[in-house]
């Protein structure tokens, strides 16, 4: 699985990655402060430390799991990609993403979901992502996830004073393809540090996977109750018929 390793200690805030992303994905100018339909990645500053923001390409992504029509899906190569022809525009992906990444074309009457797609087309051609290619300072590097994790660990080991001992994205929400190294705690850099280690989709899947059982059990129970209660009618009906038969017999007798 292809991944990105972003080393916040090396980023100088030159915004080359932001420009490269816009060019590679034909995005309009503007909105360089926050992610939006125009911008798949931004660089934010936290007390002199520059931190990129982009889709985390979760290994088990919430956005893809909640999408009713499968418009978002995780490819085996790593990217979480979007198919605008499938999308119905329910915006559940935006609600569900723990990193609040997917954005919407609010001003477009026929809007699309927009987010970093990990340069899926470039990847298919065997290229690396545009942002990684543009980075001159080694802050964003591209590679296989395992190799990048190795690389991250060895950087931490080599300079334990410079780095904190954590790779963000190694375990968060079951692991992500965009991973970060940092010199200060991640909460100081605007990262969510309250996320579970389990993939979020498990939360709903636990309930959803119970449905077949509920349907079968429920059907049997309700059907059974219906049969039992309505049988009373049948019985009383038969009783009525019996009585009537007797009556008519009596009548015949008296004749």
């Amino acid at each position: 699985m292809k991944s990105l390793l972003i080393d916040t200690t090396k980023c100088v805030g030159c915004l080359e990655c932001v420009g490269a992303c816009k060019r590679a994905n034909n995005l309009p100018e503007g909105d360089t402060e926050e992610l939006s339909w125009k911008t798949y990645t931004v660089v934010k500053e936290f007390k002199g430390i520059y931190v990129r923001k982009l889709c985390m390409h979760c290994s088990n992504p919430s956005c893809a799991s909640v999408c009713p029509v499968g418009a978002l899906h995780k490819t085996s190569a790593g990217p979480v990609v979007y198919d605008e022809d499938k999308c119905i525009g329910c915006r559940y992906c935006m609600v569900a993403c723990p990193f609040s990444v997917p954005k919407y074309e609010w001003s477009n009457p026929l809007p699309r979901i927009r987010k970093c797609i990990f340069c899926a087309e470039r990847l298919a051609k065997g290229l690396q992502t545009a942002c990684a290619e543009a980075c001159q300072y080694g802050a964003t590097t591209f590679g296989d996830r395992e190799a990048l994790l190795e690389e991250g660990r060895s950087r931490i080991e080599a300079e334990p004073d410079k780095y904190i001992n954590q790779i963000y994205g190694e375990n968060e929400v079951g692991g992500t393809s965009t991973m970060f190294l940092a010199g200060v705690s991640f909460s100081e850099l605007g990262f969510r540090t309250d996320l579970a280690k389990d993939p979020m989709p498990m939360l709903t899947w636990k309930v959803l996977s119970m449905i077949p059982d509920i349907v079968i059990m429920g059907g049997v129970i309700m059907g059974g109750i219906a049969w039992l209660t309505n049988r009373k009618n049948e019985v009383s009906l038969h009783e009525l018929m019996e009585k009537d038969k007797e009556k008519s017999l009596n009548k015949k007798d008296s004749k």
Partner: protein
Amino acid sequence: MTMKTIQFPKLTFWRGVIAVIMLLGIYSTGYRFIKGLGASTALSDQFPWGLWIGFDVLCGVGLAAGGFTITAAVYIFNMKKYKPIIRPTVLTAFLGYILVSTALLYDLGKPYNIWHPLVMWNPHSVMFEVAWCVMLYSTVLALEFLPIVFEKFNMERPSRILRKISIPLVITGFLLSTLHQSSLGTLFLIVPEKLNGLWYSPILPLFFFVSAIAAGLSMVIFESFLSNRFFRKELEIDLLEGISRVIVVVLGCYFVLKILDITHRGVLPLLLVPGMERSLFLAEIFIGVIIPFILFAMPKVRINKKGLFISAFMVVIGFVMNRMNVSITGMAASSGVDYFPTWMEISITAFIVAIGFVVFALAVKYLTIFQPAKSEESTEKFEEYTTEFLQDETAGTIASYPKV
């Protein structure tokens, strides 16, 4: 020579109100579909779901829950007493579902793709399940409602077929609505880090289901009173009394569950944090659960027209607050923005509700919704027994019995 006079419908206060709502609604509808969601709503990247999901969809579906509870009571638990209110509740539920689907068309970014879940499956998605349940249950409700239409046009044969499958139909309907009343709660299970702890709970699906039953039944009472006022329909106080007893039990269960949930999850301290969330949470519990529970528990209230109405209305209000709290209040803090619907969002919601009222009134006028004719009632009963439970021969022999 006689002058010809043109007959205008008499302009009453309510007709005036509806006319204004319709005009504004039509304007907003045009605006929404031409200019898009951004121009017509207060929604944003930070707050993608607002009034239409919170009220039109979450509440709309819940308030139609009377449909499955009453049909189940009659057909499955054989409580024939409630038969007279089946028609209005099925009609309400059916209308409710159609209106929810209409509201979805406004909310979806690409409404012309609404059929996609039919062919593009993602069984891991709660939204996918909701979509299927709404589609299937609307079909079931349509089948339950059709006999009333057939009857109007004297079409005996199709309605006899439908009557034959009524029990499986009701069971299917019951299961479908159980599933998706609860799955509306399941929708929010994936946002533990976004939804306030007062509402986020692993048993959110159960809460949604239980509260929908209480609200659906309260809606039945509420509607009976509206019908009483607007359609001069007689009130079956004894039926409503029975329903209100069930509501007491359901509200009680809901309250106990809520207390257990809050204490077990250890979020009691959240009740000490002053703010919007706490006030609205307490309001929801008091208005929608505790007070109506006490009121309904009093026999005096249960047989009193006004008492029933007010208590049922409180349950409905509390229910609406709950759904809005889960989808809007509880999500506000984590989104970092304040959301308040635009007048266009509100006018479209009012528009959809108004359409519901108008269609209901039309149905009452042209179809037999209330008080089915006596003679017909008995044939219906007769057929029910004969076709469903007895073999043709026996059915034939008792064909002469007037009433069973």
